[in-house]
């Protein structure tokens, strides 16, 4: 989490995640190489190299499909959050599988070309004016280039080097890469096979990815369309957001959890309860804009549910030696017990007093935190 380069910090969860992933990948390749020959057209025998090419190509497609499902699944259901934790390793492995696929293609089809294999690949079909017969290889090359770029820049060093906005923009290219992969498959292998099973699998994969993203996006968009109203007029809290009475918040908000507030303007705000105090910080993590308000307080710090980055509720700063900061917000309780939130962010890392909850509500202790 520091600004300099640090090696990837392996821990037990990462080892288990990667081991399961590698096991599943090996199992898929093994099954594909043994099962696929039984379904092939025996009048058009397929060489072992082509089988391996198809095995790795289809595996890369399935892995990329699964990776793209993780984000919306985690937003729709917290139980999928552990998949998000090590998604970058998943992405790097997908890139490696795609490279093996590309290596088989070059090694098999273009090994004996008088020109260099890559030049032969790019020059062998120039029917760019056709739909069926379009040189689908260019889509695969484009997707592979994006995946390599993402794999190379996946380390946090590059996140700090580029800054979060540029890094996020670069990594959103994966959506374009997926579109290229679908075009690569649709204009490539789907044109070559009469077996409908593969077309059905591809259609299901594309459908699931699109539907999940559209549902998750619609849910988020709906929140934005119904922001918390700010007080109007000459009220001393004009422009502020009324969050309700302290009694109600104490009763409804479990210890260690947050209430996410969407203001009319600006970013969402996470109002956390830390034992018998409340504090508001930005909902967006400084690391990758993860939803801090969907995290919880662990060891006294707000912990991002995506990658575990932590911030002190008191000032929005990551605990030493880390340097990340998020904006904080001011809250005030008026004489009626109403809690007001100023939606104007304070500079990242600004300390401000937390709001004390009524003592009698301490009965709602930490044992009410859901799992």
């Amino acid at each position, binding site marked *: 989490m520091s600004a300099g380069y640090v090696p990837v910090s392996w821990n037990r969860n990462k080892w288990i995640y990667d081991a399961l992933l590698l096991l599943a990948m090996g199992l898929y390749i093994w099954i594909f190489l043994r099962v696929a020959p*039984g*379904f092939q*057209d*025996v*009048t*058009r*025998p397929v060489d072992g190299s082509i089988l391996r090419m198809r095995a790795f190509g289809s595996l890369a497609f399935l892995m990329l499909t699964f990776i793209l499902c993780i984000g919306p699944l985690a937003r729709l259901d917290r139980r999928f959050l552990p998949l998000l934790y090590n998604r970058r390793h998943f992405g790097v492995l997908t890139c490696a599988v795609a490279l093996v696929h590309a290596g088989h293609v070059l090694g098999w089809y273009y090994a004996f070309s008088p020109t260099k294999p890559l030049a032969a690949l790019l020059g062998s079909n120039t029917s760019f004016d056709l*739909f*069926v017969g379009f040189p689908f290889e260019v889509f695969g090359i484009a997707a592979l280039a994006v995946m390599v770029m993402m794999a190379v820049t996946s380390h946090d060093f590059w996140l700090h080097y580029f800054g979060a906005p540029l890094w*996020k923009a670069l990594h*959103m290219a994966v*959506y374009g890469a*997926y*579109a290229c992969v*679908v*075009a690569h498959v*649709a*204009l490539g292998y*789907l*044109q070559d096979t*009469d*077996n409908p099973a593969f*077309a059905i699998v*591809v*259609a299901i994969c*594309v*459908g699931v990815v*699109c*539907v999940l*993203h*559209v549902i998750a*996006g*619609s849910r*988020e*968009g709906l929140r*934005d369309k119904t922001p918390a109203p700010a007080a109007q007029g000459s009220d001393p809290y004009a422009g502020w957001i009324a969050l309700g009475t302290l009694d109600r918040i104490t009763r409804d908000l479990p210890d260690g959890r947050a209430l996410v507030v969407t203001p009319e303007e600006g*970013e*969402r705000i996470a109002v956390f309860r830390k034992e018998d105090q409340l504090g508001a910080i930005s909902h*967006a993590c400084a690391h990758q*804009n*993860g*939803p801090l308000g969907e995290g919880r307080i662990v060891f006294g710090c707000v912990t991002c549910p995506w990658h575990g980055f932590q911030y002190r509720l008191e000032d929005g700063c990551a605990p030493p030696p880390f340097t990340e900061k998020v904006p904080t917000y001011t809250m005030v309780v008026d004489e009626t017990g109403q809690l007001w939130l100023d939606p104007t962010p304070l500079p990242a890392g600004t300390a401000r007093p937390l709001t004390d909850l009524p003592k009698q509500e301490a009965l709602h202790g930490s044992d009410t935190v859901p799992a």
Partner: protein
Amino acid sequence: MKRRHIRAHGLIWRVLACALPLLLIAALVARPGERQQTTAEQIAPPASGQAATSGAEQ
């Protein structure tokens, strides 16, 4: 996530959710005519030394 990212994601996926199925459908509809599909089950055991693949599309 920041709100501009949410809006960008929403827009991108609405476009992709329209474009990708259309691409798949177009690719399947535009496929060349059905080829002769011959699976192992459809082939009778070769008789009198005739090769199973003789005369079939290579």
